[in-house]
């Protein structure tokens, strides 16, 4: 991993900020909530990558998960939107200012239930952003009702059985042509932070479906999204290393044991083979792997799919070099001749 060479974690990063500079206000979530574990890794990733906080915009919908942008990067603008509709806010913000790094947090209810439509269209448009789904299989904030990612047969705290099939957000993202699809676990910080950094280097929508147990409503014995169950069943596809563009690759891997993916910004993702051969640039393999894991009730994590060549919305809009939000009257208002020309054509 990146920091392994340093003897002691530096007090400041490349741009002179401390890890504390990437924190937010104190969390008000339940003690032990998976969402807080993810928040910590977001802070760590942003600090280690030395993101400039003012260039980041944090976005979310509504839910316990969607509250979390208040708990990290307090020096970045944040937007707690309406339930299930964060993708449209993100799309507008991205069009307005293409220099922003958009970091979005949503829940499984926010994304797979009320927000499914906007999720699909965001992915389809390939809005450049990191989209984290903090997936606990329930609506935490409204006290534990099943969400659309709840597994078939899982039981609620009150003993009710879910009889509807789950929506697999990674499978859906792949189907929609997403160029970065990953699944992780709030209880696997090492993998999560590497995936977060990789996602931040991706040009396009990066979907991270992170199983994030709700300790209050969905962490019991008969739940399929509890810490215990996730820990027992997690099957990482590979070990993920992230090498930022400003560092050298120190390759000491056995030949054939790793896959190296070069990212848009010059960074590298190094995937070290574990049990099986897995090529995350093969969309068909990704599809079958996801379907098979679901069939076998396996909890597969890692980088499921990556395509660094996809065109993002920013490129498709063909706007001027500067962000639209920075344009002034001289650039925005055509001259008198233009109006005259239009008027004459209407006479």
């Amino acid at each position, binding site marked *: 991993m990146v920091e392994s060479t340093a003897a002691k974690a530096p007090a400041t990063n490349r741009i002179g900020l401390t890890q504390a500079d990437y924190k937010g206000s104190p969390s008000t979530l339940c003690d032990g909530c998976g969402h807080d574990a993810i928040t910590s890794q977001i802070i760590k990733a942003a600090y280690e990558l030395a993101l400039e906080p003012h260039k980041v915009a944090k976005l979310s919908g509504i839910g316990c998960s969607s509250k979390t942008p208040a708990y990290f990067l307090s020096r970045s603008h944040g937007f707690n939107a309406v339930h299930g509709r964060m993708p449209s806010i993100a799309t*507008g913000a991205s069009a307005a200012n293409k220099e922003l790094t958009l970091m979005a947090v949503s829940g499984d209810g926010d994304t797979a239930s009320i927000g499914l439509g906007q999720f699909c269209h965001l992915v389809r448009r390939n809005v450049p952003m990191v989209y984290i789904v903090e997936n606990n299989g329930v609506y935490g904030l409204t006290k534990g009702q099943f969400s659309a990612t709840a597994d078939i047969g899982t039981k609620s705290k009150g003993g009710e059985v879910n009889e509807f099939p789950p929506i697999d957000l990674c499978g859906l993202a792949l189907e929609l042509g997403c160029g970065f699809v990953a699944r992780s676990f709030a209880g696997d910080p090492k993998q999560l932070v590497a995936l977060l950094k990789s996602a931040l280097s991706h040009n396009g929508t990066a979907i991270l479906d992170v199983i994030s147990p709700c300790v209050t409503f969905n962490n019991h014995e008969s739940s399929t999204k509890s810490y215990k169950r996730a820990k027992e069943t997690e099957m990482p596809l590979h070990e993920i290393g992230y090498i930022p563009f400003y560092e050298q690759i120190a390759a000491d891997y056995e030949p054939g044991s790793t896959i190296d993916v070069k990212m848009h910004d010059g960074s590298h993702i190094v995937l070290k083979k574990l049990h099986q051969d897995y090529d995350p640039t093969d969309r068909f393999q990704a599809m079958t792997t996801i379907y098979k894991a679901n069939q076998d009730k396996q909890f597969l994590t890692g980088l499921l799919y990556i395509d660094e060549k996809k065109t993002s919305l920013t490129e498709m809009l063909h706007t001027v070099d500067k962000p639209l939000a920075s344009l002034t009257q001289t650039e925005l208002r055509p001259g008198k001749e233009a109006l005259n020309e239009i008027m004459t054509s209407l006479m």
Partner: protein
Amino acid sequence: MTSLATESEKALDKSRIVNDFSIHVATINGSGSQSSNNVLMRSIFQMGIPVSGKNLFPSNIAGLPTWFTIRVNKNGYIARKKEVDILVAMNPQTAFEDVKSLPAGAVCVSPVELKLDAVRSDVHHYQVPFTELAAQATDQIKLRKLLTNMIYVGVVGELINLDFKEVEIAIARQFDGKQKAIDLNITAVNKGREWAKENIKKADPYAVERLNLTKGKIIIDGNAAAAIGCVFAGVSVVTWYPITPSSSLAESLEEYLEQYRKDKDGKATFAVIQAEDELAAIGMALGAGWAGTRSMTTTSGPGISLMSEFVGLGYFAEIPAVIFDVQRVGPSTGMPTRTAQADLFSAYQLSHGDTKHIVLLPGSVEECYSMAMAAFDLTERFQTPVFVLSDLDIGMNNWMSDPFPYPTKDLDRGKVLNAEQLNKLGEFARYKDVDGDGIPYRTLPGTNSPIAAYFTRGSGHNEKAQYTERPDDYENLMNRLNKKYDTARKYVPKPEITIEKDAKIGLIAFGSSDPAILESRDQLKVANITTSYFRLKALPFTDDLRKFVESHDRIYVVEQNRDAQLRELITMELPEYATKLKSVLHYDGLPIDARFITDAIMAEER
């Protein structure tokens, strides 16, 4: 040939009606009559005669009845005229009903095989062998239906003494340099013209004569006018979901942007995104407004309903975005292509909690243009969603207008602090009323200052944008938002007020009712009823409203909806004058006409 052919030429001459009549063309939609109607209308316009055109069309692509009415009026009255003077009955499905509804003495031009003279004997029938003439105009069978439309232009033109040089110019313009199409259409017009010359003995009184009243004027629909306003307002992010009657606003906007808003390298200073629905359209507009661009979306009633939740967030979180609502009748099945002014309530108070919005009410195509610009200034100044409510009648119909003036006012980008200003101030509280006008300062994402950032959320925030559920914080927020709304009264477009000396009656109206009101006031004057007129251009109301209501005995609020929505809002504003307020309500889906208003007021005043 004609039922009144016995009338002497002399009597006819005396009773000639020049430059004051309506032409009603009944066709089937999808039959290509639109070009012919445009040519007819433009030819009259080019003769210097004031004219207006309205398309009354079904929500269908092909096969249902459509009417196009052209009003020719030397006095410049451009509202719909209820009475039809010249009917061109091309649609066999509706011909019997169309001809039955004519007033006695009107003209009916129809295909000979419909035998409409059997239905009414008290109108002037000119029965034309269209099929035969079309066959003479072209040997291509599939073109004959289209050319039939141009043949009636020739017949009607000959009847009303149209200058055929102008028809040729109008055709050349309509078919934009496509010489083959131009030639073919001119041939068809001439077929109709020659036939009429040889076969019609004119017995009706209607004719046009050249005037000089349209020189330098333009013809445009309100949606295109609004689009031009948006281009010059500097709109940068446009999001929309197709819905009649607003689609043509977004579509012509995109065309104008492509033409006038690219830099020398061909890169755009705008982004247009066709959203997946109206929820996304308003979300994108708010996201872009939050990030600092001038953003907008266009829709109609059903879309407004879908935008409700987001507009509430925009109001509470104080985010700019302009929403064009080109109003139509109710839900999506049945009457979506008919006009109404029935979204006033919903736009004004759209969403949950205590919300009220700035709503602009353009009454002409020129105001669609100027208010588009005003809307962007207001939305950024007040950091709140702003509605522009036009309707199908203004938005999609063709209106004559003076050319639009180039804006003289600079863009008002509102209270936005940049990094330098922030560093000088040393502190920043997003929702603090620093200036005492209720309008806080905002920062944009991307501002390079450690104190620039804030967290945007709905109702629960204090001055520093921190999460709060304290009663006093919420109350303070609500009161400040109210104060901000009061400040807006001084910024919104002022009403247009015409006070008649000694008038005891005042009329209040808004939007597309204006031309009908102006004409009705003249009709009322003839009946010795003088009226003052207050044309509302925006909500919130300005102080002028109270003065106007106070100084008249009876107020007629004229509007195109069932529930007297404007009258209700005035009653809320001035409860003490509630008993003075009467309603004239028009809500059949057609544009309001002057006679309707005059009759309603005369009935009360008698």
